[in-house]
């Protein structure tokens, strides 16, 4: 399940008031989340959680659930 903190970081970066973010949500399903804004969102998540992802880890991400799991692994 997507944590409230991750949800807030993503919505703030995309300047969205609200959006239904679920484990199986992919970038293409969220308005404004495209290849150009992707790295901005990833950097904002890294800053908010104080973690650093490897390029290969980011490239393999397929859904928000996987991003949530990656954040949890890094902060564990």
């Amino acid at each position, binding site marked *: 399940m997507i944590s409230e903190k991750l949800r807030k970081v993503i919505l703030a970066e995309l300047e969205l008031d609200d959006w239904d973010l679920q484990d199986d949500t992919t970038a293409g399903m969220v308005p404004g989340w495209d*290849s*150009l804004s*992707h*790295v901005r969102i*990833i*950097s904002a998540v890294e800053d908010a959680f104080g973690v650093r992802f490897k*390029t290969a880890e980011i490239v*393999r991400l397929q859904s928000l659930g996987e991003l949530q799991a990656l954040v949890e692994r890094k902060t564990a």
Partner: protein
Amino acid sequence: MPLTSPGAVAFALAVLALAWAWPPRRLWLLLLVSSYGFYATWGPAWLPGVLAFVTLAAWRLGLLIERAPEERRGGLLGLGLGLCLAPLLLLRGAGALGLDLPSVGVSYYCLQAVAYLLDVRQEVCAAEGHLGRFALHLAFFPKLVQGPIERAPRLLPQLQALSRPTLADFQAGAQLFLWGIFQKVVVADRLAPFVDAAWSPERPPEGLAVLVGAYFFAAQVYFDFAGYTDMALGLGRLFGVRLTQNFNSPYLSASIAEFWRRWHVSLSTWLLDYLFRPMQLGLRDWRTWGTPVALVATFLVSGAWHGTGTGFLAWGLLHGLYLASSVLTARARKSLLRSLGLAGSPWLRPLQVALTFHLVCLSWVFFRAPSAGAALLALRRLVSGLPASLAQGLETWLYLGQGRAPFLAAVAAVAAGSALRAWLRRAGEPGGAAGPLARAWWSPWLRTALSSWMLYAVLFAGAAAQSFLYERF
């Protein structure tokens, strides 16, 4: 053997007839031998040798990367990338030195081999152990000379599951091929004399003629390449293989970023996944400037992939700068639209589409020109010759010296091609998912009538066949 030639059609039908009688488990062998035979007709005997070299290098290195411990994978990947890109770089280098060596297809299968190695390294797909099927995934003749640049995770499973061709696939494939050849010989080739006149070195056009020439080239390059893609998709479909659609009405894009999601999709997604994204992530500590720098670098590579001329580099640079500036000005543009009262206006998208189309046309001037200098000269002539061209007759600036009747025929061909594309978007591509219009009772009748009319137009109203523009890349 160009896909538009009767020989290519006869070749495909002969292979299809053999495929019906061939044991399905060995179909890969028939298609592989046919594909190498097809490629051999394109140039000297060493050209299929280059394909075989890239195939063996990518296949062997893919297996080695998969089996190697993590610390050795990077080195093996580097070796594989070097071997797969070497033929492309050597041929491009020879071209830059003035040696005109045939390189048909090389840039397409080299990129496909590179994508495969990177996918294996990133564990996006497993290494293919079967050399024959792997070789076919690079050599499959419908997409060999001009793409689409297929990805292993999409194409290899289809080649592993090859079965006897079906009548439904034949119908869908034949319709796609017909639709493709219509766009090529009835529309794109009819525009060629206008584009050639607009770039005539003897009588360089001025003023509005430059603008009209740019519009003609925009239409020509689209129908030429989209036509080829549909022909390739149709040929692939004859054997039950669904190749990637490269085009999705790109000139209806409301931004350059959207344009690149709808134009030459297999190349733009290749550049996005294997070049732009890793570079963008690697530069993310640069904050504001990381993405714009990655965009400019990616599109410079895209320009260099098309050729070593300065025009291609300028074309790539221009698109890189378009996208970089769109990233840097995103917030300012949003505020501007709000303050102008255009945010949410029904006029906004048409205005954005018109602006995007003209930005793309400007870039096409550099793409079509023999050099960046020649393109700049043409743009200077567009401005300086404007008053004089307005005083001239339509024959000079609108018909580009080709006469009224050929001009009207060319405009009618573009309108017919665009209308058919719009209809297909709503009714569904041949053999694809049915669109909303497909449910209407008259839809099958209209499809049959249009197919008959397209066949008639191809046979009796086609212009003299020109080679495909994207063949030389």
